[in-house]
């Protein structure tokens, strides 16, 4: 699915990613944990193609394509999806309207005809039910006046609509109560298949009770420094990151 090799990236001259390696195969769920400021959101931004970041070294292969060569929209059209840590509000742009535009541009890219209005609305109903997002919210302006939890559910709703190959969920669980967490996780699990993959970035082991990861990685100081299974997440939550810091801090 994706093979990130020795990725280095910086912003405003500050090095954030410092030789990151990660391989994710179809059908897998990977969790990335790590202290604040480690570079987790930077990784998702770089993969999504945020232009402020400069990739100085390394490569990213996405299903045989050089991901870093593609524009942000083409990455999405190739099947990459990012659920933002902080979804923004876009007043005046209706959720379903922009999703239909997105879906049709993706279809056009793949040489498919536009989706019919009827099929689209059926899909909106189905997928908003999946994440228990009020269908009124689905047709309102993007995230405008949404609560924190509603914004996160809206991200998963969009993911469900666009059916990506690889979804990166950046702290989608942060700030959610248990009910909302269950709903979001449920959405993710139902969309899981042998053909797609998910990367969940999280601080909390409790998410991983709902979304069972195949691998847990520790991102620290711009690199993946440790990889394990679900048990690693438990250990991290218990012990914190100090032991990792002691082990891997680069001096000077």
């Amino acid at each position, binding site marked *: 699915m994706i093979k990130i090799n020795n990725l280095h990236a910086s912003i405003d001259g500050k090095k954030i990613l410092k030789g990151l390696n990660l391989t994710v195969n179809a059908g897998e769920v990977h969790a990335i944990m790590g202290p604040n400021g480690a570079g987790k959101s930077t990784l998702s931004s770089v993969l999504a193609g945020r232009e402020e970041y400069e990739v100085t070294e390394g490569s990213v292969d996405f299903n045989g394509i050089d991901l870093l060569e593609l524009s942000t*929209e083409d990455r999405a059209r190739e099947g990459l999806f990012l659920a933002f840590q902080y979804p923004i509000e876009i007043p005046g*742009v209706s959720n379903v309207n922009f999703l239909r535009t997105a879906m049709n541009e993706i279809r056009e890219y793949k040489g498919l005809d536009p989706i019919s209005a009827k099929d689209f609305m059926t899909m909106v109903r189905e997928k908003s039910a999946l994440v228990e997002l009020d269908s009124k919210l689905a047709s309102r302006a993007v995230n405008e006046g949404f609560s924190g939890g509603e914004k996160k559910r809206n991200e998963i709703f969009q993911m469900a609509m666009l059916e990506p190959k690889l979804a990166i969920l950046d702290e989608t669980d942060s700030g959610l109560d248990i009910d909302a967490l269950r709903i979001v996780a449920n959405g993710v699990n139902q969309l899981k298949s042998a053909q797609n993959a998910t990367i969940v970035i999280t601080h909390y082991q409790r998410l991983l009770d709902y979304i069972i990861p195949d691998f847990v990685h520790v991102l620290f100081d711009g690199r993946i420094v440790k990889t394990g299974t679900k048990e690693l997440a438990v250990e991290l939550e218990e012990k914190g990151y100090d032991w990792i810091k002691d082990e891997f801090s680069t001096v000077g």
Partner: protein
Amino acid sequence: MNSQQLDEMEMPTQTSKLNQFRTNFKEGNLSFDPSLRILSRSVLENSDFPTTRNESWKYTRLTKLSQLSLTTTEKINSPISVPLKSPYVISIVNGNIIDLPTIQGVSISRLSDCSEKQLELVCKNVSIENDVFHALNTLYIKDGILIEIQENQQINDAIQLIFETQESSIFCPIRIIIVGKKSSKAHFFQHFSGKGTGLTLPVFEYFIEQNAHLSLDKIQLENDESFHISTDQVYQERDSFFKINTITLSGKLIRNNLNILVNGENCETNLNGTYLLGDGQLVDNHTVVDHLKPNCNSNELYKGVLNGKSIGVFNGKVFVRPDAQKINAFQSNANVLLSEDASMNSKPELEIYADDVKCSHGSTTGQMDEEAIFYLRTRGISDRSARALMTQAFIGDVLNQIENEEIVDYVQSKLVELHDWVI
């Protein structure tokens, strides 16, 4: 000696640009008060095109306009295109009135057929002294139209006023007087389009009588070379309602003067506008709402999107006179600049002489929200469509003020054509 120097030598030095500009025009002979014609003539003889030193033309240069050599014409060529289905169509081609419909409950006549008494409405609130364009219009109109919505009549279909320029280098002054008699209701649709360079110079005078309701959608779809200077002079009596939506889609230089005198209690006044400018375009909206009487509401919302090397001007004055207590007056102008070469000059002005009023005004000019663009692109939307969606969202609250669905669809379709909108 080149030809230009020759021209200059042959011209008496005191000949102003304005005098030169009007050499080919012939005075009209409508039988309104002759003193108006005398005054117009004297204004034109004694002044010139306003320069940017003139406060109300500070950002709008008329040099290019003043250099045009224009004539009037009686020619009418191809049939005109009418945007709406409504059968009530008044068309004005190259400044000539071509046909007037019969509408139940409305009396429509050419000014050339009006009595002197009816013509007393001409320039009732339009001042000629300080405005050469009003003087030009008054002196050179060959004809005009008086439209009176009769008392208690409600006209459901839009009355379409279609202005089309089919020739290049022509001067089209026209006067339209609209009277909404007591307790009447009507909706007007004005549409301006055409080809070639020229000056379209319409002056509209509205008299909205007691308890009357008049709304108006003005669509400006002029071409890349055309100049358009229009005045809408509105007079509201008590309990009346007026609403105008000015949608400027294209044109080289467009100046809209909108002056509203609210001279009665319990009136509602709505003025909205949007302008989408591309390279080389200038749009200047000058509005005045003058509250003379208490207990009225006015709402003003203008929003603009400027691309390429374009210039936007907004000047909105709201006066609340000493006796006009309990006025709610809101005004807002917001702009998005899409390019570094675009510039916006926005000046909201409130002058309040009463103490018990609620007024607010605001003006903002900013850039496109790049975070939002990125968000939309991560969903597979192209940069171009993302910008179109954002633009659409930005001016959406102005477009939502258009109540007639057919007009909304028409405007949307033009936006798709002109600006690649995605709908």
